[in-house]
């Protein structure tokens, strides 16, 4: 699975996710990536793209949950990401990337690694796997 999340200079967030799914899957199997709220979500607060154990991401509505805890618990972006990864994955393994309308970027995962990269207008840039 691949994904990208962006907030532009107008504070508009967007998210996109694309995948080929599971190796040796049954034909017709649908995962989390095309499910809005599970693998992908964006609102006026944030943009989120998820990857990992598809069925766990679906159960947790993982992408939407990041936005929800920001809205209802008042958490900042990284706090929201940490919260959903720790509390909402129900023993599943997954990761996500997220941006907020304020220009923040965050990622979190409980798998052994996630291919990821992020950058901000302030000059921060990082690419990592583990």
């Amino acid at each position: 699975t691949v994904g990208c999340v962006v907030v532009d200079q107008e504070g508009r967030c967007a998210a996109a996710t694309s995948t080929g799914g599971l190796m040796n899957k049954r034909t017709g199997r649908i995962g989390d990536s095309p499910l809005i709220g599970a693998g992908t979500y964006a609102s006026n607060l944030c943009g989120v793209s998820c990857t990992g154990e598809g069925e766990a991401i679906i159960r947790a509505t993982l992408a939407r949950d990041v936005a929800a805890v920001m809205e209802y618990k008042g958490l900042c972006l990284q706090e929201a990401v940490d919260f959903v990864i720790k509390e909402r994955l129900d023993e599943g393994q997954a990761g996500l990337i997220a941006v907020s309308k304020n220009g923040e970027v965050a990622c979190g995962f409980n798998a052994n690694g996630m291919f990821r990269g992020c950058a901000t207008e302030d000059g921060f840039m990082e690419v990592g796997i583990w």
Partner: protein
Amino acid sequence: MGKWAIAVHGGAGVDPNLPVQRQEAAKQLLTRCLNLGISALRSNCPSIDVVELVVRELETDPLFNSGRGSALTENGTVEMEASIMDGPKRRCGAVSGLTTVKNPISLARLVMEKSPHSYLAFSGAEEFARQQGVELVDNEYFITEENLGMLKLAKEANSILFDYRIPNGGFETCSAGAAATDSPLQMNGLPISLYAPE
């Protein structure tokens, strides 16, 4: 005027024995895609354009599990899916079951912008793609030798493989077969534990 930010990912769940050169290839691709997005942002492209642009680039490169380089079904074919969402008005578009669309994310965006629906799948999505005139290719375009090898291993192990996206040359992968008997729960005739990792 706010500040822009961008993040990309190429999947979670990574082979802990991934060779260093493979790790470097992945990092180079991620860096290239980040720079592509950064250039677009500096050109004042809106966020929805930037996410589509970057994901198209990731779909075109066979390194990760999307577009070209997608994981294979049990039949040795590719079925792809994608979704996109625009935050300000929460517009969204999604597609599943694509077999000939070169860039699924662009079709998802067309669903969002050119149809009254949010999600199209299988033959309906393919028909919409033809009507919209997006680039179509044979299913073989998406299939790589590495993934054919991974599928062969999965079938021999009778399991769904962990999605270690960049295989070691010797195909040293793990399958969930060893844990197959831990839980009595089954899905589609296979122990639930086989489905755990993506």
